[in-house]
């Protein structure tokens, strides 16, 4: 029987994030390059590089996703969000050329999650970004599947180190399928060793009694 006792809340992946997912909470800490579109009075202390009391209009800074998402509004332009470089045109071409060579863990590790969240900020590139995310996922699917279904009883850290957190989850579920099957196939062998152990144990006891 499945002996799983812990079911973590899965990340939402799409535009909606899952409030209770630890992965999604970590995801909102990813920093985005933003440009302020109005003056933030008396918040100059946040920006260590300038001495002024206010954050002036047009300052470029990095803000976490949760903050930029809260401040961003389509009508009152408080700040404009720029794309992190992995989602820009140049990197997108790399991803479409061969998604398998990219180290998504280094790029992300929430490449898909952050990319989906970026769609909140209206940018003319949005459809392209969504397309690139999907194509990257599809391109890398085969490799994730094959490595997760073939690596039995070996060190998988080399296989997963280049995977995005989402792909890591997939890898894990693939492994659970494989492990279940393999242990079933070997089930008979495992039982035999157990019984032989018990047998030896009994024998030794008998000898103890006799001596």
């Amino acid at each position, binding site marked *: *029987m*499945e002996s799983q006792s812990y079911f973590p809340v899965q990340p*939402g*992946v*799409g*535009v909606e994030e899952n409030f209770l997912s630890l992965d999604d909470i970590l995801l909102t800490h990813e920093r985005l390059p933003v440009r302020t579109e109005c003056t933030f009075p008396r918040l100059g202390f946040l920006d260590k590089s300038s001495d002024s009391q206010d954050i002036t209009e047009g300052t470029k800074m990095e803000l976490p996703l949760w903050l930029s998402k809260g401040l961003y509004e389509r009508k009152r332009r408080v700040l404009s969000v720029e794309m992190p470089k992995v989602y820009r045109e140049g990197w997108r071409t790399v991803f479409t050329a061969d998604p398998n060579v990219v180290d998504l863990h280094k790029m992300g590790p929430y490449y*898909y999650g952050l990319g*989906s969240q970026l*769609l909140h900020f*209206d940018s*003319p590139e*949005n*459809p392209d*970004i*969504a*397309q690139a*995310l*999907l194509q990257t*996922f*599809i391109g890398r*699917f*085969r490799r*994730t*599947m*094959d490595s*997760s*279904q073939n690596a039995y009883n070996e060190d998988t850290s080399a296989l997963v180190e280049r995977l995005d957190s*989402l792909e890591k*989850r*997939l890898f894990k*579920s*693939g492994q*659970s*399928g*494989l492990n*279940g*099957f393999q*242990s*079933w*196939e070997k*089930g*008979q062998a495992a039982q035999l060793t157990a019984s032989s152990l018990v047998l030896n144990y009994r024998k030794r006891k008998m000898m103890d009694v006799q001596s």
Partner: protein
Amino acid sequence: MDPLEVEFLAEKETVKIIPNFSLDKIYLIGGDLGPFNPGLPVDVPVWLALNLKQRQKCRIVPPEWMEVEKLEEIPFSMGLTKLLLTHASDNIPKADEIRTLVKDIWDTRIAKLRLSADSFIREQEAHAKLDNLTLMEINTIRTFLLDSLNCMYKLRSNLQQGSSKGQFSNY
């Protein structure tokens, strides 16, 4: 689903046995069994066949497909094969060879299944028809495939949302 559950389900398949005892028909909730006459072949579910076999009350007649020549590309049941091979290998001619063959077929079929899963994802199909797959095969790939289809669905709905948003702002 656990592989053990799949194995349990495989025990509902019927198999032909030749009993060496005689017994009237038995009436069970799951169906009537028998009557058993020594030397006369009867069809019984695998669980009963194995039980009788273990008590040496019968001989199991291996299914027709379980022959070295026939194990080429017919659909087969991994669970059933394993059950019969482990419990009644003395009734099956060339059991070792069959075991290797079955393992080979399994590997080929899994490779094929993976290939079709990949093309399924690659072409972004919404549904697929998986004919002639055994429960065990589906079971090994189930969690992985379901999770990845889920992810792909979400990434795809992103796409629609992104484009519809773009259209909206054009108006």
